[in-house]
């Protein structure tokens, strides 16, 4: 999955979980500014883990603030599990 696809996956899952449109979200956005708190982010990560069949260790989720940081992490885990 390339980076634009990964961003689309993020947008789709965030929309699904938060039940509002996140189609406009870019990698520069700060996740908390989107109204997604840290526990909401965990749900989002969990959904991405499920869809992409990856596992992100808990400790790597600490410090994630932007969409870019989250996608970097997911991309890294996707590559590791390939």
């Amino acid at each position, binding site marked *: 999955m390339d980076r634009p696809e990964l961003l689309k996956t993020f947008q789709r899952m965030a929309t699904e979980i938060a039940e509002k449109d996140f189609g406009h979200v870019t990698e520069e956005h700060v996740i908390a500014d989107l109204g997604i708190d840290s526990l*909401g982010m965990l749900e989002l990560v969990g*959904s991405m*883990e499920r869809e992409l069949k990856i596992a992100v260790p808990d400790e790597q989720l600490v410090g994630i603030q932007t969409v870019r940081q989250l996608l970097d992490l997911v991309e890294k885990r996707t590559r590791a599990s390939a």
Partner: protein
Amino acid sequence: MASDQFHEKLYKNFTTFFDKAEQERRWNPYRDVPWDRINPETPAFVATCAETFLGVESFLPDYIRKGLEVVRASSWAQRSFAANWGYEELKHSVALMEYLLRSGKRTQEQMFDFQAKLMTEEWRRPFDTARQMTIYGSFQEMATFVIYLRHEALAKQYNDDALAAVYRFNARDEIAHARFYEDIVKVYLEEDREGTLRDIAHVAKNFEMPGIGIVPDYDARIELMREHGHVDRDIFLQKVYFPVLKYLGVTRQELVEVARRERDERRASAAQ
């Protein structure tokens, strides 16, 4: 209706907890804190942080009354725990107030005014069932434990041994309370894993610390506490959320799954 095993397990948990509390954790806020080792040079903001803890702890009458409302019919163990919890929590506010008075950071008149102002507001119970409130207690007591420890370190940094001791005693009680709540949540999980997982997801999603909106100048006070106690959202995840889930034997994936099932059910029901 809970099973006999549920009550038996809770009874055993409470007996173990209370026996240990009586044997190892009893302390006297007037006699066991080294009050002669207050540092008069401790900065004013450290006292403001202590006053904020006091503000949150001072809603004890609401916590007891509204907490007991949901557990009184649930089990003997939970209502007994609630009674003992109130006694132990009372000492936290007593010790904090003693610090503020004995250090000269506040006068009695200021303390009585502060208390009167606090009681113009009322704490609202955030969740409606004994199970949800027990889960809430697991997270909230663990978070309070972590924050007390951070501020104990801050008090030590300013060589205020008395305040450090107050925080240490309070923290020791908080972690004991957190463990009790967690052990009860484990029993709930054994009784009804799906329902308990749904409640954990619900509580986690809607979790707020007590004090929001009821302690005067809460936002500014919490900012000060976060800044100097080095407490932020990541600390909550690292030191509270993940450890509690680990202790309960619950994975993030399980919570994601129940949240998804619940969402699907809600949509299906709305579509009918």
